[in-house]
């Protein structure tokens, strides 16, 4: 277990050196829809995804295709880290308003 923690902290340390070069992309939730509904992002790198919720109710940003979930409170914004992803299309949705809150990451 100790060896595991050591390995984990080494990896952490190695990773934090390269922080800061992470590109940022933005999604807006408005009227329980994602804007843009299709977001283009580069393949093969990690990026920061900022999600801004302009609605008066909470939303949960979720994707089972790239395995992320995070609650976005009303009239506020949050961020998650995604990738590196292989090229392709990855769906995401708003768990609290699945009828309308649907979108796709176009990774290329």
């Amino acid at each position, binding site marked *: 277990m100790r060896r595991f923690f050591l390995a984990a902290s080494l990896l952490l340390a190695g990773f934090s050196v390269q922080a800061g070069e992470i590109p940022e992309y933005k999604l807006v939730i408005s009227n329980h829809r994602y804007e843009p509904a299709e977001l283009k992002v580069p393949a093969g790198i990690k990026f920061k995804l900022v999600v801004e919720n302009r609605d008066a*109710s*909470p939303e949960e940003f979720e994707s*089972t295709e790239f*395995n992320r979930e995070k609650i976005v409170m009303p009239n*506020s914004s949050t961020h998650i880290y995604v990738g590196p992803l292989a090229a392709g299309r990855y769906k995401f949705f708003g768990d609290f308003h699945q009828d309308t809150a649907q979108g796709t990451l176009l990774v290329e």
Partner: protein
Amino acid sequence: MPGIALLVFREVLEAALIVTIVCAATRGVPRRGLFVGGGLILGVLGALLVALFADSLANAFSGIGQEVFNAGVLLAAVLMIGWHVLWMSSHGRAMAVEMKALGGAVQSGSSSLMMLLLVVALAVLREGSEVVLFLYGMVAGGAVGVLGGLALGVIAGAAVGFALYYGLLRIPLRHFFDATNAMLTLLAAGLASSAARYLVQADLLPALTDPLWDSSWLLSNDSLLGQTLHILIGYDARPSGIMLVFYIATLLVLLGGMHRVARAAAPRAGHAAAAIAAPPRP
């Protein structure tokens, strides 16, 4: 209303499966109803509190408060479950023998009941706070049938839990606590890998290859079976490498610990309590 019921059901299902395994693992222990009930109440209160302070939580740790909190809750549950399975591997055999002799009542040890109370509370808190936020949004948005949806979702989720519970009771007593211990061990490994997922999302841990594999063509994460197996054994259709590392590390630590504790507790019984089937991968 169907949409509301479905979301509530999915959240309740996760908590219900965990509560069910805890109930099975404490079979025959006196006052366990009190402890499980206490855990449920604590969990609901905690869920309301978390939802109430969701804004501050979201802003904590420069925006990754939610991930840190979720990972913390999950890892705390892993610790408590770990404590219980280690404790059981020295007492489980005695409990099963005693249950046979006394017709189902176990007098010995309820010392790890407190741990399981907290596991129940944490499970309900985590899933419950999402339900509260969701319902708050629904009510604020003027949705109809919110109460009906909530009731339907809770009842359906609890029903699956009861079905699993009565299924588990069919396991012969001789193997019963070995089985519940195995389930708790897999549950803990799955929770640990979920914690890793949150830490990757917050960029606190590297993903180490993401995804490691993709079995969503076979069983997707959002299918009912996929979601059930996600809770029970930590199944994930697209896990990252670090999730598997957390999963296997938890399994190894618990299996190793159980083996040691069992050997120390019963030096004469050669094939002591820690026997457990080879676990599937997440």
